Structure formats: structure tokens, C-alpha cells
């Protein structure tokens, strides 16, 4: 589903279950947004996708009950930023924000630090029995790699 979102940005929406097979659908949604907006710098899209997928992974991996959590992704492309909203029906939790990137020997724990490093804004809140993630990357600006 696409359309004109708030503030005039183009909007892309995906709804379904937060299960591993649906991660490809998230990639496809972002590819659709990039394809429709050729002015987007491929580097911005790539890094935004990397961040968003880490948050999606988090929902798939930790959301309960397993296989029953529903999510709704909304991606909006604006003139100066790309934005994603992820709402899911998983259990209440508190993400561990602001953690350092794990050391080289660590086999896990990099997901949220990666997302935080690649986004200019990342907010989480619990409201109406739903988890809400809001992710923004400004276009053509830092943080770059």
C-alpha cells in the first residue's frame, strides 16, 4: 500500500505477523520506497535498511507470544529524511538503550547499537498495548560510516 502521508511524504505500509519469513517483506517495502524515489542516495537507503531490519529482528526474536505478534510498518520518504514507524502487538518491554557496541568477541548484542548508530532519531514507547518504534535518518547528512 502506498500513498501520500502526513507532511506530504510518500508512504509505504506493510501489515502482517512478526515472523522470520516476513523480514523479506520488510526488505521489499524499503526497496519499493527506494525504487519510487530515485533521488534517495543508495547509501542512505542501505544504512536505513540496516537499522530498520535490526529493530524488526528484535520484534521477531523477542516478541511474545511467538508467531502471534502482529506488526505494522510504515515507511515515509520526505525531502530531507526517511522515516519508519513500527507498531507491534508484542508484550511490554523496555529496550536497553544507549549501550556501547559489544566487543569483538561478542556473538550478540549488536542489533540496537547498530540501529542507534545509523539513525538520527530512534524513539520507543508503549501505548495502548502496542509497542511503537519511530526511526528517522536524515538524508545526505551524518552519521555516515
Amino acid at each position, binding site marked *: 500500500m502506498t500513498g501520500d502521508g502526513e507532511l506530504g511524504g510518500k508512504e509505504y505500509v506493510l501489515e502482517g505477523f512478526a515472523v*522470520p*519469513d516476513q*523480514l*523479506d517483506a520488510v*526488505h521489499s517495502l524499503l526497496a519499493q520506497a527506494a525504487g519510487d524515489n530515485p533521488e534517495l542516495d543508495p*547509501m542512505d537507503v*542501505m*544504512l536505513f*535498511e*540496516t537499522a530498520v*531490519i*535490526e529493530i524488526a*529482528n528484535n520484534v*521477531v*526474536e523477542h516478541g511474545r507470544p511467538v508467531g502471534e505478534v502482529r506488526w505494522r510498518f510504515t515507511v515515509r520518504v520526505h525531502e530531507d529524511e526517511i522515516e519508519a514507524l513500527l507498531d507491534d502487538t508484542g508484550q511490554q518491554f523496555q529496550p536497553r538503550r544507549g549501550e556501547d*557496541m559489544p566487543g*569483538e*568477541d*561478542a*556473538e*550478540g548484542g*549488536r*542489533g540496537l*547499537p*547498530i540501529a542507534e*548508530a*545509523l539513525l538520527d532519531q530512534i524513539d520507543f514507547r508503549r501505548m495502548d498495548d502496542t509497542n511503537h518504534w519511530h526511526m528517522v535518518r536524515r538524508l545526505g547528512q551524518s552519521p555516515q*560510516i
Partner: protein
Amino acid sequence: MSFEEVDKDTYVVLAPEGKFNMVAAPTLKTRIDDLVAAGKARLVVDLHKVDFIDSSGLGALVAGTKVARKQGGDLRVAAAGDQVRAVLKLTNLDRILAPYATVEEALHDW
């Protein structure tokens, strides 16, 4: 995720395809564990067909590196694309998983 495997006796090249993510990572990690347990501890992961890696894929590479080194071998990554290189650098994993340009370069002293 499917991956090709070429056993050259002194080393093994594993070539995953597509998205090296939380779906695919356990399969490759299990295969690496099996190879190392069978005495094949020199491994090259050829990433030229991987268009996306996530933290689970990174975790599998770190775990594979640790198990290979414990057995006196190593795991090296080759032919990584832009996204993989960016994520390796962002996470500082390029220090232990320095990406080689080609599989041949990764084999330089094997």
C-alpha cells in the same frame, strides 16, 4: 539461505547467498561447527553473493572465527559488498574479520 561449499583439503570455502540474517545465520554456523569438528579449521566465507548482513550474520561469523581459531585455524571473509563492509566497520569487527578483496587474497598464506 543456500550456500555453496568447496573443500580444497587445506581449506574450505563457504559461499552463502542472499540475505545473511537471523534466518540464515544458524545454518551456516552449524556447518562451520561441523567442519571445524571434522578438522577443517581454515575457512573462507566468500560473501560476493550476500547482499545484506544483519547482527545475527555477524554473530555467526564471530562465533565461527572463535571456534576455528581455537582449533588452530581461522575464518576469513572475502569479497564483501558495500553493506557488509559498512556494517563490519561500524561494529569494529573489521579488526578481527578484515575483509579480503578476493578469495585468492584470503588464501595468501594458506
